């Protein structure tokens, strides 16, 4: 089964979820807590993250969608983005880059 990344508030993280990206929490610019990508979250990890006021985690989760469902979701996301950018001149480099970056993010 395919997998996808999902960024969630720490309040929605539960034991057993697998980190999709390394977690690093810094205080005063010094990293004082890290977990690697692929680490399954334990109750202890969640407590330690909360203690350090971590606010979100990136989770790797199974993507049960078929290819057709995934394509349909992408079409929906593109339509939503087209509506938001309807009045924007996307020939301008910054706007074109933002549009592409958000579409890539929504396609994760």
């Amino acid at each position, binding site marked *: 089964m395919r997998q996808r*990344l999902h960024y969630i508030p720490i309040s929605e993280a539960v034991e057993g979820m697998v980190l999709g990206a390394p977690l690093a929490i810094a205080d005063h610019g010094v990293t004082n807590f890290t977990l690697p990508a692929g680490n399954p979250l334990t109750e202890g990890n969640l407590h330690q993250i909360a203690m350090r006021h971590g606010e979100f985690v990136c989770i790797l989760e199974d993507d049960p969608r078929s290819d057709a469902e995934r394509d349909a979701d992408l079409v929906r996301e593109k339509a939503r983005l087209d509506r938001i950018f309807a009045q924007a001149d996307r020939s301008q480099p910054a706007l074109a880059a933002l549009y592409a*970056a958000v579409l890539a993010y929504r396609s994760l």
Partner: protein
Amino acid sequence: MPLHLSESDVVRRSALLPAFPTVVNDLLQTLDDDNATIGALIQLVGRDPVITARVLSIANAAAMGGRNQRDLRDMQVAVSLIGLAKVREIVLAVALAEFSRESRMGSHFWEHSVAVGVAAQELARIGHLSQDFSLVCGLLHDIGQLWMARCHPLEFQLVRMSLEQDEGLDVIDAERRVFGIDHCAIGRLLATAWHLPASVVAAIEHHHDVQPPADKLVAVTHVAEVVVNALDLAAHQKSRVTHLAGSACELIGLNWSDDLGYLFGRIEARSHYLTRIFF
């Protein structure tokens, strides 16, 4: 026929808003003094029992993750456990959340403001500038609209309706047609009257400019709002992106060839988290 509002009208009618929380101003003034900050912060927050109680409640939940019974009752302990920067951030957001709540503005206004505050903080990391200032600019960037809704609710509704009927209409133009002035100019007047730092006043005034002045705090606030709208974080079907100043992106150091999924993910997840805990 637009309203003919003078600058003094705007300032005078701001008396209809709740008193602006002085702790925000006081806190921003102490940011450059590392030695004074802990004592000053505790003293400043201690003046307001409502803010103190909410800060301790949020700090307690944050520190303990809701997973044990320990109770933070003292600001000094809160600072030692979750850190000065976090407590300061909580104080700023709580003070402005209380202000927004007392102003009786709709929840989507606060959700949008929090999202822009968080995005501004995240962009400030990239641009190496103060995250506290950036948070305040994001939270206050649309303060002029709060004034419009509170002081002239019918006219404010007219603006909203005209934007819904004409999707090509720019919000600034729509406001000027009805009010004779836009929310950025009103925000400048309010922020000046509240004696907020000049850099914050400039960010509020110029966040909608097509070519904002070359100032990092203005740039961060401008780009933050555009990114939040592009991500549709308030998700009320009205998000629009009309322009984005490339010069502001360059000033921050935002590199479009980087993978921005992590930045967007942080902004989205933190916005949802903070909207819930602060309001």
